[in-house]
């Protein structure tokens, strides 16, 4: 163990059935440093955190912590805490109905009675000490999110913590609140606490971090000093350039569109996204790109009316209209395949057939159900066309593989014959064969005149399908790339921002 290290993890491996979540990952946290843990979706950072906090047992590897002789095994969050490893999660894990003081101390006393006075006194001292603008007696729910987050940190710090894990702590804070949080992080750093900072905001990483560790596909890419790793290099390391196995598909000239403008939005905004402009022509395939959390999914959700639309003008085929809920969008011939298939896509217990006809049935109206024969015909047509591997159309969708589930959702939208189809991460977590099929299908549909917006974490894949890429960073559109600009190098540079 290194002299100044407070935590070392060596050769950590974690396997799930069929998935290699972590392979031989090393991680070292030094005293009084802020260490960013970076990686795209599925890179393994949350698995690593969960191993460290005892949520998952690791399959192989060694964890050592300052002050304890030998390797330790962490079997529960409680044990992690006993070793001085505290976590503040993305969603605030406090009780909004209790007071600030109570939140800081609940579950930490063995006594049978609550000593309110002592508790409030101690809480008051701690809050003052850390400069957190909250009163002990205040109800937590009445504090701003940033302050709630800081109360959670104060609670963690007070439990004699050596390692503080901040898992996406800034995702719901505004700029000023983020600054407040950073102030607290620097304060703790000065006191010698080692902080693991997980975030997807690049700028924030550079604002506070000393060290950066990058993971990709469950493997360690490397550990770097923040000052030695320019932003563009970081993005490169996170995304990775090699995409083995996919190079077999020949790069096709993506259809350039140029037809009639099918959909147009001006200053469109929703409860989750900032205002943006956007348009798409008939037969065009374009895409939103950016890192996870850059706002790409939120933007297409605003187009589809999936979040609460808060402003902007929308035109469909040149005619001004309002799309405030998914049904509006569907009636205008827009389809949307959501990012999270399990949560927002499939209806697990319904049959493949019912899942396929769902959207069309909704457009048709509840009072005009399809006959069984008709539904059967619809389902069979698409099961055949998309080569969905299922025992029958009666099979519940949850028993299908991920790729086939995705095809069913795709079929659901194709059945409505949309003019404009939004595909958010249609290929995530599915096998390579199906991936290629979906890419080919996208190009074919576009050739037939459908407009498609395609989102993927894999830039390679987007370059292959899209003729125009809208690049987002930290919830804003920062660039639009077409023609010659569509190269991996260029895209990454735009995502990272600046020329550094």
């Amino acid at each position, binding site marked *: 163990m290194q002299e100044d290290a407070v935590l070392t993890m060596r050769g950590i491996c974690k396997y799930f059935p069929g998935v290699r979540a972590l392979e031989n990952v090393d991680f070292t946290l030094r005293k009084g440093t802020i260490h960013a843990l970076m990686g795209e979706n599925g890179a393994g950072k949350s698995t690593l955190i969960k191993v460290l906090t005892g949520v998952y047992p690791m399959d192989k590897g060694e964890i050592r912590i300052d002050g304890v002789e030998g390797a330790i095994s962490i079997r529960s969050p409680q044990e992690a805490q006993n070793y001085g490893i505290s976590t503040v999660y993305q969603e605030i*894990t*406090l009780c909004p*109905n209790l007071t600030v003081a109570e939140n800081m101390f*609940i*579950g*930490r006393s063995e006594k049978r009675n*609550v000593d309110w006075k002592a508790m409030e*006194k101690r809480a*008051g001292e701690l809050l003052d000490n850390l400069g957190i603008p909250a*009163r002990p007696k205040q109800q937590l729910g009445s504090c701003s999110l940033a302050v709630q987050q800081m109360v959670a940190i104060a609670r963690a710090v007070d439990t004699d913590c050596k390692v503080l894990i901040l898992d996406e702590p800034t995702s719901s804070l505004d700029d000023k609140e983020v600054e407040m949080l950073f102030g607290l992080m620097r304060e703790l750093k000065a006191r010698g606490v080692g902080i693991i900072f997980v975030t997807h905001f690049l700028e924030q990483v550079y604002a506070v971090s000393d060290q950066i560790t990058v993971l990709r596909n469950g493997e360690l890419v490397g550990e770097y000093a923040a000052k030695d790793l320019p932003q563009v290099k970081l993005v490169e390391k996170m995304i990775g350039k090699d995409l083995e196995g996919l190079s077999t598909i020949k790069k096709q000239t993506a259809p350039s569109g140029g037809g009639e403008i099918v959909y147009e939005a001006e200053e469109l905004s929703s409860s989750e996204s900032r205002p943006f402009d956007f348009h798409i022509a008939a037969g065009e395939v374009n895409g939103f790109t950016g890192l996870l959390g850059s706002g790409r999914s939120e933007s297409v959700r605003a187009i589809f009316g999936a979040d609460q639309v808060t402003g902007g003008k929308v035109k469909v085929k040149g005619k001004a209209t309002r799309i405030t809920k998914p049904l509006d969008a569907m009636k205008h011939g827009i389809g949307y395949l959501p990012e999270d298939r399990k949560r927002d896509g499939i209806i697990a217990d319904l049959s493949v057939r019912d899942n396929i006809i769902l959207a069309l049935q909704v457009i048709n109206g509840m009072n005009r159900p399809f006959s069984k024969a008709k539904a059967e015909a619809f389902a069979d047509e698409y099961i055949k066309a998309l080569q969905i591997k299922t025992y029958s159309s009666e099979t519940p969708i949850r028993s299908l593989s991920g790729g086939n589930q995705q095809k069913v959702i795709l079929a659901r939208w194709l059945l409505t014959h949309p003019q404009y189809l939004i595909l958010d991460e249609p290929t995530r977590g599915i096998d390579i064969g199906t991936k290629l099929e979906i890419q080919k299908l996208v190009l074919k549909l576009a050739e037939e005149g459908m407009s498609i917006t395609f989102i993927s974490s894999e830039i390679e894949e987007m370059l292959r399908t899209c003729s125009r890429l809208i690049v987002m960073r930290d919830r804003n559109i920062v660039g639009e790339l077409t023609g010659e600009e569509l190269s991996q190098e260029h895209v990454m540079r735009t995502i990272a921002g600046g020329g550094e």
Partner: protein
Amino acid sequence: MTTKTKILNFVQKYTMIIALVLVTAFFTWRTSGKLLLPQNLTNIIAQNAYVFVLATGMLLCILTGGNIDLSVGSVVCFVGTIGAVLMRSDLNMWLAVLIMLVVGLLIGAWQAFWIAYVKVPPFITTLSGMMVFRGLSNVVLQGQTVSVTNEKFVQLFGGGANCYVPDLFHGEGINILCVAVGVIACALYLFFTLRSRSVRKRNDLEVESLGRTVIKAVVIVAVVMFFTLRLAQYKGIPMALLWVVVVVLIYTYITSKTTVGRYLYAIGGNETATKLSGIDTRKIYFFAYTNMGLLAGLAGILTIARMTSAQPTYGQNYEMDAIGSCFIGGASAYGGVGTVPGVIIGALLMGVINIGMSIMGVDANYQKVVKGLVLLAAVIFDVVSKKKNS
């Protein structure tokens, strides 16, 4: 703070008290003052003793996340049945009481086990209990009424004509003990409020403004004195009130001052957070529902004493009265919010509406309609004000 937000805050904080005052004033007016006659005030307590007890237990369940217990009515009946049958065979009264409480506790533990450790939804577990214990009561009673003839038992738990705490001072036309108790209660209240205030001040902790403390104290003292004087003009302190006060004091303490009590709130606020804080949430659920059984047992005792019999139909809809009181009294349908005093005010509100309409001669079915609408209004208020805050 502007005057407007001040008023708004005040209204929000004391909604139920304001509602209770308004409703009481309304019925006092409509019944030309009959509502506040000593006998009617006594009746509000005596008739609703079981509601106060059950609602207190129900609050603990609701705090864990809006979970309710549908079985309490049937458990009241079953426990009452057991007690009546035991006393019919001349079992010692104290032993019978003990057995009734233990039976309630065991029934509570039975349901609590499934809810806490097997994760059967409380709604279903207690729906099952509702049927099972109603059925069992019928089986034991064989459809018959069993009367309770033990005079001492009946009197002690608030039944019959003499179920009042005897006046030690033998006052003429006024129960002196009752007045004395009122005075002592007010004195104790003032003493503890002031002491807590000065201790907090000494430790530099936040205290509410002096003006507010004084106003609160004046109102509480006035209400308590009015109430005890009225009771004193009738027959004094009803035994049922004694039991209610004991339950209220114990559970106010549990919910505000003990660790396990605060865990109830924590679970209702954020169950994951509570678990991550190292608290065994299963134990807390187990506690809440076992306790509900125990209090249902006590309510069973109060019920058969008041009715001086046990019948297979006793306790019907008691669960609804208890649940309704909780929500009217400001408990949140999502859990985590609600206090014992609040619930008592909710139960009182229901009681006042009941008795007020009875005096006015309103048909019992309309009474149900009104109570139902009041309940809905209370929950709408909770939901809407939550939405505004978030």
